[in-house]
């Protein structure tokens, strides 16, 4: 195959080559982002800890469990640790869209139950000592410019303070964490559950007392099924029944809440592929048509139909792969900011090797097929006809 001719052909229409590669780049970029988002949805299920269980109300995630349940649950054999979890629903009013997740937890047990929360700044000891202390994610700290020692004011619609409900709760940043597993986001705030209960007891804030869910860390060698059944049996007679599930199962309900969104994103990904296929095909058909005379000359010189077709196929492949490379780089480049935006829905968002490889292989297939169509046509051309045609 004449390599020099291949590159000359590519350079013959620099704008066209650039635009074609550009549209492939855009498509691969988009396919990578969509794929990583869909995978991110389920990361919390796929990467859930095997040794953790979650206890929630049998009726609804939005019904609080009594505080007294913790003591009873802890006595079930096979449980090493329990930790309260309560959604706070606060927002930072000083910044538009200042909404992120906050949970009230047990500072004593939180770190041992969730070892993947790695403290990178400040001290966890301070968090355990200070009633109004909190631990915040690295990305959250970066986005709002908060650091250890800062005071964070949050207004909660679930636990309003003041007569108009607009008075802020204040939290003191004691430590910053980073995630040691991919499924944990770095955009969450954890604070002391006792701080919340105290304010409700004193009447400083309104809202329902109780605990949203209890997390259980199993002791080594304990069987999850046995513990789940025993915890459920504790409260089977009411007044409030509970449902104990594995962490994976608990996380799955949030994925299932997304309904058809993953399917929607996948079909959009399909639409994008369709569009780039047409774009590359269009370019290669144009290239093929223009080169009818060249093909005639090459055939007259004795080049086989196969090598002429190969020329077009390799040209398309190179264009597609060059574009795909740029697209993959772009996707990798925006990984951090996008991960922060989608962290609430897709905490596992990551442009990893699998995502990149998939993007590149799709581009390669598109390149091959769209080179093949004009290539076959060129291979079948009769030199006399080809030479007679006006370019």
């Amino acid at each position, binding site marked *: 195959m004449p390599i020099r001719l291949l590159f000359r052909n590519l350079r013959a229409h620099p704008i066209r080559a650039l635009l074609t590669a550009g549209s492939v780049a855009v498509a691969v970029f988009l396919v990578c982002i969509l794929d990583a988002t869909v995978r991110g949805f389920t990361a919390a299920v796929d990467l859930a800890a095997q040794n953790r269980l979650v206890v929630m109300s049998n009726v609804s995630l939005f019904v609080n469990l009594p505080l007294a349940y913790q003591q009873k649950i802890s006595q079930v054999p096979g449980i090493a640790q329990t930790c309260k979890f309560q959604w706070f629903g606060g927002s930072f009013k000083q910044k538009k869209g200042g909404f992120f997740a906050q949970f009230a937890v047990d500072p004593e047990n939180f770190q041992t139950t969730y070892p993947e929360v790695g403290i990178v700044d400040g001290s966890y000891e301070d968090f355990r000592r200070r009633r109004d202390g909190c631990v915040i994610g690295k990305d959250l700290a970066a986005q709002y410019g908060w650091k250890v020692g800062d005071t964070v004011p949050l207004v909660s619609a679930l636990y*309003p303070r003041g007569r108009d409900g607009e008075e802020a709760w204040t939290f003191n940043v004691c430590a910053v964490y980073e995630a040691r597993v991919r499924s944990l986001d770095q955009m969450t705030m954890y604070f002391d559950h006792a701080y919340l209960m105290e304010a409700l007891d004193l009447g400083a804030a309104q809202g329902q007392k109780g605990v949203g869910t209890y997390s259980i860390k199993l002791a080594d060698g304990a069987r999850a099924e046995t513990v789940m059944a025993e915890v459920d049996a504790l409260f089977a007679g009411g007044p409030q029944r509970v449902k104990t599930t594995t962490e994976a199962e608990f996380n799955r309900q949030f994925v299932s809440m997304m309904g058809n969104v993953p399917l929607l994103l996948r079909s959009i990904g399909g639409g994008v592929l369709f*569009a780039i296929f047409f774009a590359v095909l269009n370019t290669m058909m*144009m290239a093929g048509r223009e080169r009818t005379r060249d093909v005639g000359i090459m055939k007259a010189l004795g080049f086989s139909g196969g090598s002429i077709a190969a020329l077009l196929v390799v040209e398309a492949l190179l264009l597609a792969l060059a574009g795909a490379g740029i697209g993959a780089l772009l996707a990798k480049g925006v990984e951090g900011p996008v991960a922060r935006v989608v962290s609430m829905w897709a905490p596992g968002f990551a442009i990893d090797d699998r995502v990149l490889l998939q993007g590149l292989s799709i581009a390669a297939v598109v390149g091959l097929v769209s080179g093949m169509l004009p290539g076959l046509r060129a291979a079948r051309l009769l030199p006399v006809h080809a030479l007679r045609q006006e370019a």
Partner: protein
Amino acid sequence: MASVPLSYNLRSLLVRRGATLLTVLSIAATVAVLAGVLCLQQGFATMQAEHGRDDLAVFLRPGANSEGESGMDLERAQILLKETPEVQKGTDGKPLAAAEMFLAVSLPKIDGGQTNVPIRGVQPATFAIHGDALKIIAGRNLTPGTDEIIVGTAIAERIQNCRIGDQLVLNVTPFQVVGIFEARGSYRCELWGDVDRMQHALQSPNFNRILAKLEPGRKAADLNERLKDDVRTPAKVQTEREYLIAQTGKLSGLLQFIGWFLAVVMGIAAVFTGTNAMLASIGARTREVGILLATGFRPFAVFRSFLFEAATLGLLGGLVGCVLVLPLDGMQTGTTNFDTFTDVAFAFRFTPRVLITAVVFALLLGLVGGALPALRAARLLPTQALRRT
């Protein structure tokens, strides 16, 4: 200044129909993605806005944005129910006001997976307020004071165990499904039961909101002004329509973000494709351009002519894109409303707004894609253009 006849461009598109088709399809795919997501957003937003009533008032706890976040105890609820003169009286002389409970309950969907279904504890006044808009279409209505529930039509189709005769257990209390009701907007996606029985079953003494019918001429905004700083019973009052529209912000915003993010990114690719196609098409017609210029058409007329051709490509792409998503119109779908965290069922709606947005966007794609090639054509010198083979 003489214009190049439009038929010249239209015929050129027809002659090069293969390339025209590919360009139109790549614009169409972009437009279809935008239009499809917008249909979803419109279906959701218009359902909430159209079915909200202005003569009904919703009372929440100050600071709360939704029923789930709101809460009021029995004492406050009783005061508001009985001592709000702005509320209309029913035929029995009692105020048309109902204290309701609201909770998102996790239930299995018929097509797999779990979802949060809104369950509402209602009072007899609730039915009086809704009046004829609420119809029992199968079975019978619930009897106040008993463990009976009725289910909205959208629930009966989507959620397991929601047919007449089925049982739904809340903690340890079984509730019997006795009827299916049709109602306005998102009420179709709810389960209704007696509020006292539900509070008992859920061990919760609180109400989430009060729904009331206002006397003609009374405004929810005035009531809000009076009650928001009230010492005994502070409350946030909105019309039902305002309340429902306020529940669309997060999901609508998310859908619009997804739609426009994709449209802009894919639009870049479509502009590249359009530019490519126009460049090739004009390149093949260099001689024709030379003839046009030589016969006295001004460069600007040539520019305008090719821009028109590009706009036609865009318009065709827009129309094809719309035709592609048209079958979605009316298709039922469901997702979680992130303002209430509950499942909501609605249909894709291909509204005039979607059509206009999609077509304008497609035209824009065509024009941007055609600008550079048209400029190049207009700048050609007739002598050079004519010499080119």
